[in-house]
């Protein structure tokens, strides 16, 4: 539990930290589009260098990025291996137990592996360099044009920010309950299958109860302060778009559009 560093905001001064969260979200979306265009290894090399530069500018230690990738590694490998066996393009290379491996499969699987690693890395950098509340502010800002078609942008942003706000609390609560039950002889690591089920029950039920209690208390606290989602409101903190954000957006757009154009031409 102590190793839950995935996506946790790391407060250090850096260029990436100081960028506008709206820019970061837009850039991430552009990048996600570009990464799914097949521009060959050269294209991924360019995107990889872009991610590397962003990582260096964010001053986040590489080992945190690795830590974030580690829990995802199983999924990434699972997808990669699945694809190696299932894709049947290109020439047949060799066969294992009557399953034929094609050259196209190896290539595609390599692409998928690279794509996922790049996406996870960039997402981790974004969440570690941006305060969760800034991210929700940015989401609300970016969605606000949709308010004209009655899209509940503020409500959604509020929901996201509450959810984000309670993640550390629930983790803390999980740790606390695990310790309390461990004191009563529960072994969360070992034991037979049925014992494990029982130990999970002893964790999940108290966790749900406290989550519902928290939700109710928060709802009451908001109501007693007359919270009204439709009320016109000002913000304590407003986002300001600066020159560096425009420059960053241009760089990301040029690189990503370049890769997309490359993939179309090739």
């Amino acid at each position, binding site marked *: 539990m*102590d190793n839950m560093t995935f996506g946790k905001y790391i407060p*250090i001064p850096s260029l990436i930290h100081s960028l506008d969260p709206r820019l970061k979200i837009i850039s991430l979306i552009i990048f996600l589009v570009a990464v799914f265009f097949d521009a060959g290894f050269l294209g991924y090399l360019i995107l990889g260098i872009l991610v590397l530069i962003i990582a260096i500018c964010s001053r986040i230690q590489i080992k945190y990025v690795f830590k974030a990738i580690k829990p995802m590694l199983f999924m990434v490998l699972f997808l990669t291996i699945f694809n190696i066996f299932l894709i049947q393009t290109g020439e047949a290379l060799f066969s294992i137990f009557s399953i034929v491996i094609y050259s196209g499969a190896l290539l595609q699987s390599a692409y998928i592996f690279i794509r996922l690693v790049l996406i996870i890395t960039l997402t981790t950098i974004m969440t570690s360099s941006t305060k969760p509340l800034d991210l929700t502010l940015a989401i609300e800002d970016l969605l606000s044009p949709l308010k004209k078609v009655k899209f509940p942008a503020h409500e959604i942003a509020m929901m996201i920010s509450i959810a984000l706000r309670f993640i550390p609390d629930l983790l803390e609560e999980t740790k606390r309950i695990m*310790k*309390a039950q461990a*004191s*009563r*002889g529960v072994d969360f690591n070992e034991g037979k299958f049925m014992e494990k089920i029982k130990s999970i029950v002893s964790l999940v*039920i*108290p966790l749900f109860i406290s989550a519902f209690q928290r939700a109710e208390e928060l709802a009451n606290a908001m109501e007693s302060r007359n919270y009204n989602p439709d009320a016109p409101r000002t913000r304590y903190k407003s986002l300001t778009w600066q020159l560096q954000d425009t420059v960053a957006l241009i760089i990301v757009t040029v690189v990503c559009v370049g890769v997309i154009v490359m993939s179309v031409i090739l």
Partner: protein
Amino acid sequence: MSIAFEKVEHMYNNDTPFSYHALKGVDLAITKGSFTAIIGQTGSGKSTLIQHINALLLPTSGKVTIDDYVITATDKPKKLKPLRKKAGLVFQFPEYQLFEETIEKDIIFGPLNFGVSYEEAKSLAAKALHQVGLDTSYLERTPFDLSGGQKRRVAIAGILAMEPDILILDEPTAGLDPHGTKEMMALFKSIQKLGKTVILVTHDMNHVLQYCEEVIVMNHGKVEKKDTVSNIFKDQQYLNTLGIDLPIITNFILALNDNGFNIDSSINTYERLIKAIGGELHG
């Protein structure tokens, strides 16, 4: 000596930007069968300290010895269960750990985990429930319909049913009504009288004076003082620097003595205080 800490350090989130040095070289010995209070400001490391006693936390460096069990950063006892049974830890607000459909099932959960037979666990549950002041009609009820104070009692019964040799309590009376508080403290005292070691983390100096024998003062992750209750309360100036007030009785005696009385300031019960003043207790 039943519990010993030697140069124990504890770092939370070691090797990350969130690291926090919670215990800084703690040396400590708690005698078997004593009633020891751990006091200190919030964040002074009290809760971290007690979690080392049943190996929920391992020291970052240093050594914790509980009878035959030795816990260091690298080697913890292979089987933790006997140690967890030996040292029963009641967390702050333990009512959150209840999860079973009936109170009986919840109380026997601990004993069953430690390999006690079902029948024996049931009799332990009935006994523990009685100890915390609830009658056996509660056994079949669901814990979630109880009041906060009753839930607390059931949760404490869940630990008592494990029959620990060392009972560790983290602010067990926080949020209880005065009557319930008194009952609980008397219960812990009676458990000590059975020969068990009781360790109490508390902010209430009146409890320290009335029920405890030894006091450990924690400050910024260090054990600053370890002494008998009466010696600790002699140093009012020191306690004030930690934001700790004297117990009501001690304060009262000091005020009397300032005005010409000469009463022993180590008196720890109202009965003795009244006698010392020369009055009689009615009712």
